[in-house]
């Protein structure tokens, strides 16, 4: 992730554990749901779960469009 950022490509880190993402040095961090299902929630009905995933993906895309000067948690 840092190497991708270093190469000049903005990268949004959808991370289950935000403190770890901060420690390793991600710049654009989007908190995810949980370790075994960062972009899902098996407790939800299928269509709600898909909507949840879509929203997280949109949030990650919004992070990619945002100018950041330092590590930012969205």
């Amino acid at each position, binding site marked *: 992730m840092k190497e991708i950022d270093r190469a000049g490509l903005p990268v949004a880190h959808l991370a289950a554990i935000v403190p770890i993402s901060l420690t390793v040095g991600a710049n654009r961090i989007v908190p995810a749901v949980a370790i075994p299902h960062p972009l899902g929630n098996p407790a939800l009905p299928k269509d709600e779960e898909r909507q949840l995933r879509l929203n997280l993906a949109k949030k990650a895309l919004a992070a*990619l469009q945002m100018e950041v000067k330092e590590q930012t948690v969205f």
Partner: protein
Amino acid sequence: MARYRVVHYVNQFFAQIGGEEEVNIPPLIKEGAVGPGRALQQALGEEWEIVATVVCGDSYFAENIETASETVVAIVSSYQPNVFVAGPAFNAGRYGVACGASCSAVGEKLGIPAVTAMYEENPGLELYRKGICIIPTADSALRMKDAIPRMASLVRKLGLGQEIGPPQEEGYFPRGLRVNRFVDRTGAERAVDMLLLKLKGEPFQTEYPMPTFERIPPSLPIGDLSSATIALVTTGGIVPRGNPDRIESASASRFAEYDIAGLDALTPAAYETVHGGYDPVYANEDPDRVLPLDAMRALEKDGTIGKLYDRYYVTVGNATSVANSERFGKAIAAELKSAGVDGVILTST
């Protein structure tokens, strides 16, 4: 009769409760020493007693750091030990975070000295090293017997209220503390000595090491998303069924890339996870939960993004070394750049 009391923290695995299927259990108490606590008890000797062991599932702790720490503090408080010990966590990331968080919470809230141990690349180290003594270990539990005596010796010192020397003498990771002390030579003289040694190419020891954790300046944002190509990358181990490139489930030595052109979603019939560090049930039921192909394809179809890049990149982020990760990252970045990708979404479990 033991004179000194110790409470020990271990995860569900070392407490022999279970592996990945038990990672969500909240903190619970076991009387006496459990698992590695038995070896620690032996190393500590008769004057010391591990009166209780706190056990918690790794995912429960990592996903509820504050609540879990509070529970651990409450349990520890009820035993009034002389010292609190956690781990060793080796290179288990969630476990390392749990050990670090519970030690620093116990130290801060109860004023009870706390010790843990882990591998130098464990993320728990950078997060919690400032407040607590963390002893270096190897990256795997095979070296348990090397870690235990060193933990025991620091436990004894802390429990007896003895002064703890500097990290290089006592054998724990530097906490970033500066301690005032009197020395014979002024700073100017010491600096010149150091410079002379450096000019001669001889070894010298700095008095103030610079932090080595490198920060990358954030890349510029994407201007027009609707004409941008976005790529997906994951450390969550999602691969075509059968794992054709044989990515390791832990300590990965390779990454792979797979074609997703024309696919609308990842089906459980065709994809699975090979990550060995989390419960695979949910990812195997619907791999989109880790690599959100369905959502990204929908956003491509409705014109939110210009294009979803035709390939995704995957490795397993489970005790994978920093050196390997950097190597994968460089290679992936170079390929994405030359393919004209504008931005990346990287998912981590």
